[in-house]
Each structure stands twice: as structure tokens, then as C-alpha cells.
């Protein structure tokens, strides 16, 4: 309290009380605009099917019901399979990608490595020019022919030039040259220096990149959309995508038998699947959010 009063006395350059209130009100409105759309999906998923059919989607349903979730866990074999695929792909992919990116960034961060700028350009060039979608698809489907395997959901996302640059900047600023020089004099090899000195010093940076990767793999539907035809390789995101586009197709074509329509997941089950797919991200969000902020802050500093 005393502290606040003292602060008040010195901070003569702050805005007036009415301005402060107006700014806060604006931000509260913006935040409602940002969060309410998500809340609707959650509320629909715990509504009872009957109220949806009579009243449509509502924020406060007349009747609550969690049978949509029961349905998914009991009979949603495909859903659970897709969920499992997503977990496997995300797990393997994120660890591999983080390691590859860190290994690529480390030599670029060492001023003793003469060709470092050449390799930085080798990575950076991919952000300003690419062959386009068609050759990219053909490389995987016609040259390496991995489009029917789990690898197609992992390999394309193993590198990212921006994250290499962020990681390099992080390593430059948090690993002192003297420390590495000292380890060298003690006879440590480069790999030992990397794993025993650089990695422990760069934990925060690595966590940022790891979370970036985690999110990229978990949220990805694109690779499955382009390459995957086999049901067993569906990820949870692609499963959701398929479900929504099937629903639109079936409901917009009146000549499809009612039989096929009856097999559609109920309105609430659709939204419940969305909640289950997004759930882990939202629950983890408060914990990982600061790593993203620090990652972006490093990235914002030119260098």
C-alpha cells in the first residue's frame, strides 16, 4: 500500500484515471470478442441434443448433458485411433525437430566456424523461394514414396529456418565464448560441449522451440489433407476436418438417403470432438505461454 502511494507520487507522466478506465474497458471488450467464440463450442458440446434441435446453438442451454463425451469414449474407435496417431506423430516429431534445429543452430552461433553465414543463408533462402506445392508433393509421393507411411506426417516439419535463427540468437546470448574455450582446453569434444554445456544453458530457448514444434505437429491437418488416404493414418485434426466436410456434403445434398444422415455424429458430439482435440492445448496454455512470449521477444530483436 505504502509502495503504491509512493509510486503514485513519482509517476507524474501516467495517464488520467478516466483514460485508464476507458483503456481497460476497451481491452475487456476485445478479450470477450477473442474468448467468447471458443466458449460457444464448449457450451454446445455439453448441451443436450434436444435443446440444440429446438433452440439451436446457445451459450446457456436449457439442459446440460455430457452424453456426447460418453459416446466418443465408448464407440469412437476411429476417434481414439486418430488421437493416438496425433500423439505418436507429435511426440516423435517434436523431439526430432528440436534436436535437428538445435544442432543446426549451434555451429551458426559459433564465431570460430567460418562458413556459418553460408549455412545460415542455406536455411534462410528457403523462406524467400520455394518450388511450389506441386513439386513438393511429387518429391514425397513419387520420388521418396513415403506418402503412405507415418513419416509423411513428420519429415516435412523437421526444419524451420526462423526457429533456427531464434535458436542461434539464443545460443549467442546465453553461452559465453570463454566457457566453450575453457571446455575445449580441457579436451572436451564438440559434441560433448554441445550436449553437456550448450544444451543445459539453453534450456529456456530449447523449451520455446520444442513447444513451437509440439504445436505445429499437434495442430497440423495439412500434411494429412495432402498425402493421407488411409484411415489408419488420420490425425485427430484431419479426422475433425473430414467429419465437418462430410456433414456439409450430406446435409447440402437432398438426394442422399436419410439412412446415411442418421449415422452422422450428433450436433453435440461434433463439438465434443473439437473440445477434445483442442483441450490439451488450452489446459497447457497457462504453463507454456511465457516460453512463446520469450521466443517471440528474441525473434523480435533483429540479429
Amino acid at each position, binding site marked *: 500500500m505504502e509502495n503504491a502511494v509512493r509510486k503514485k507520487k513519482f509517476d507524474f507522466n501516467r495517464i488520467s484515471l478516466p483514460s485508464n478506465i476507458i483503456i*481497460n474497458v476497451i481491452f475487456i471488450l*476485445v478479450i470477450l470478442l477473442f474468448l467468447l467464440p471458443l466458449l460457444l463450442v464448449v457450451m454446445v458440446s455439453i448441451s443436450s441434443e434436444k435443446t440444440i434441435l429446438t433452440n439451436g446453438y446457445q451459450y446457456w442451454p436449457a439442459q446440460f448433458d455430457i452424453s456426447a463425451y460418453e459416446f466418443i469414449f465408448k464407440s469412437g474407435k476411429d476417434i481414439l485411433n486418430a488421437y493416438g496417431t496425433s500423439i505418436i506423430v507429435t511426440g516423435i516429431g517434436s523431439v526430432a525437430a528440436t534436436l535437428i534445429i538445435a*544442432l543446426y543452430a549451434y555451429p551458426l552461433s559459433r564465431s570460430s566456424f567460418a562458413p556459418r553465414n553460408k549455412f545460415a543463408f542455406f536455411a534462410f533462402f528457403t523462406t524467400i523461394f520455394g518450388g511450389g506445392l506441386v513439386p513438393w508433393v511429387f518429391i514425397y509421393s513419387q520420388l521418396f514414396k513415403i506418402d503412405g507411411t507415418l513419416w509423411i506426417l513428420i519429415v516435412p516439419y523437421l526444419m524451420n529456418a526462423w526457429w533456427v535463427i531464434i535458436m542461434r540468437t539464443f545460443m549467442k546470448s546465453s553461452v559465453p565464448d570463454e566457457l566453450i574455450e575453457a571446455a575445449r582446453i580441457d579436451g572436451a569434444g564438440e559434441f560433448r560441449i554441445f550436449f553437456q554445456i550448450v544444451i543445459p544453458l539453453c534450456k529456456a530457448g530449447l523449451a520455446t522451440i520444442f513447444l513451437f514444434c509440439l504445436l505445429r505437429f499437434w495442430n497440423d491437418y*495439412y500434411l494429412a489433407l495432402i498425402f493421407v488416404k488411409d484411415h489408419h493414418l488420420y490425425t485427430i485434426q484431419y479426422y475433425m476436418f473430414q467429419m465437418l466436410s462430410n456433414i456439409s456434403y450430406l446435409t447440402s445434398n437432398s438426394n442422399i438417403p436419410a439412412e446415411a444422415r442418421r449415422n452422422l455424429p450428433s450436433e453435440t458430439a461434433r463439438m465434443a470432438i473439437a473440445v477434445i482435440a*483442442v483441450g490439451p492445448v*488450452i489446459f497447457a496454455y497457462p504453463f507454456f505461454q511465457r516460453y512463446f512470449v520469450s521466443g517471440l521477444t528474441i525473434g523480435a530483436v533483429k540479429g
Partner: protein
Amino acid sequence: MATEQTVGINPSIGASTPDNLTEQKRLGKRRKSKGAMARDLAFYVMLLPGVIVLLVNNYLPMIGVIIPFEDYRFQDNFFSSLVTSKFTGFQNFVFLFTTSDALNAMKNTILYNIVFISLDVIVPVALAIAMSQMWNKHIGNFYQSAMFLPYFISWVAVSYVVYAFFVSQNGFIDTSILKTFGIDQIDFYSEPKFWPFILTFFHLWKYTGYNLIVYIASLSGISGEYYEAASLDGATKWQQVKYITLPLLKTTMIILALLAVGRIFNGDFDLFFNVPKDTSMLYDVSDVLDTYVYRCLINLNDVGMSAAAGLFQAVVGCVVVLLANVGVRRFDPDSALF
């Protein structure tokens, strides 16, 4: 653990006597070239996995830039197909620039990007400046986190959100809002005129938090002394923003806008594919080059056209980013990208 290492290492250096040092230096010099070579070798090994991924994922597809110049037919091997397919010159590009769908996609791509680039500067900068003036910084952090959340929501889930609001019969807008005001229901998914606003809203919804954090980061780099001095001289808040904050944010604004300008021929596939749910009735206002390229290849199997549009995007995008960079470098070297 790292500190243990340091402690363990330092005494060994400190232990060397002056006599020892010269000896070490002499030896060290000879050893250095050998050591440097071994070190470089280790560095190359570290770079190898990344180089392989970049070669496979980014550089090999660049060979495919010849696909739009031929009538590509796949025969059991990618490379031999590239060589043996019939050369057709610029035919695919002629088709591309005479097809109304492609031209529509091109127009949409550029128009949306112009709107997005402007809003992505104006909205986050305004919010960042407002946030920096708030009395309570903790609440500011909370606002920032809340606005960053949509960035982490997958695009497929976003399409569910859009669906929950706009689908006819059950959608929230139709049943809860329009009904309350006694307005007739609208079938949004067959009414193109609403979608430029919906798409722009969801673009801002998804990315504003991200841009906000970048701008807050560069705002925090501005020394508070400038503002103190200005306010002692009687500058108002508006004057401080105009003459201190905005000029100092200029570099960040230009770099971010420059990156976006370089991608002016790239539509955001995630947004334009998922939010309108690839509805053909909305293509007039929702089709961008990226969704067009995708549809040509996957739905229509028109390799030539798709590849031509893709190459056009890549080349023009590359030229635009280089030109923009040259232009920026001329009048403000600090803001140039490279």
C-alpha cells in the same frame, strides 16, 4: 551442472605459470589448426541432419520448377518423368492468365493481403501502445495472454467455431441474434457478401495476439527517460506517442510489413480453406492462389495449371521481397531485412 563445469575448468587455466603459458601457446598454435579441423568436422556433422531435411523438403522441389513448362506425366520415376514429359513452353501460363478462376484468386490474394498488412500494423500497434499506458501491468499481462490464445487453436477447430456461429438453422447468429431482432435467417454459407468481413475478423482474431507481443517486446526496448524528458518539457501523451513511440517502433513495423509484402501473392491457405470450409458457392470472395493451386492439383488433378500458379507465386514473391528490401534499404538502412 554447467556451473560445476566452469568451476572445474578454470583452475586448470589459472594453474599455468608464465613459463608454461608460452610453451602452451607455441604448442597450442600448432595444435589449433588440427583442432580447428576436427572442430569444423564436428560442426559439419551437426549440420548434416538439418541440411538433409532442407535438401529433401525445400531444395529438391526446386528442380520441379520445370514442371509448369511441360505436360508432366508420371512414369514410375520422378526424375525420368521430368526428363521425358513433353515440353510445352508457356502454354500453362497462358491458360493461367486467361482462366477467370485463376484471375479471381489472384485478385483476392492481393486485396486481402493489402487489407491484412495494414490492419496487422494498425491494430496491434494501437493495442500495444494502449496497453503500455495502463496503470496495472499485471492486468495488461492477462489481457495479452487472453488475446494470444487463439493463435494456438488449430485451424480445423477454428472452422468448427465459425460453423457454430454461421451454419444455417442451428447457428448462433441465426437462432440467437437474428431471431431476437426479428430478422429473417441468413444462410451464410451461400452468401458471399458477408465473407470478406468474416475472413478478416478471423485473421485478426488468430494473429493479433502474436503481433501484439512482438510490438510490446519492441516497446519495452524504448528507454523511459525519453518520456520523462518529454513530459518535463510539457509534451502531452499524444505528442509522446507521435514523436517518440511511433518513430522508435518504425523499424519493427517496417520489418514485419516487409515480410508480409514479400508474401503478397501467398494467400493464407489455413484461413481461406478452413474458415469458409472450402464451399464452392463462396469461391468468388474466398478463393486465393494457395487454395486455387491446391484445388487444381488435388480435386481437378490439373498438374500443369497448379504448378504454373505455384511457380508464378514463388518467383513473383521472391522478386517482390527483394525489391521491397532494396527500396527500404535506400531510405532507411536499419530497417532492411538483409
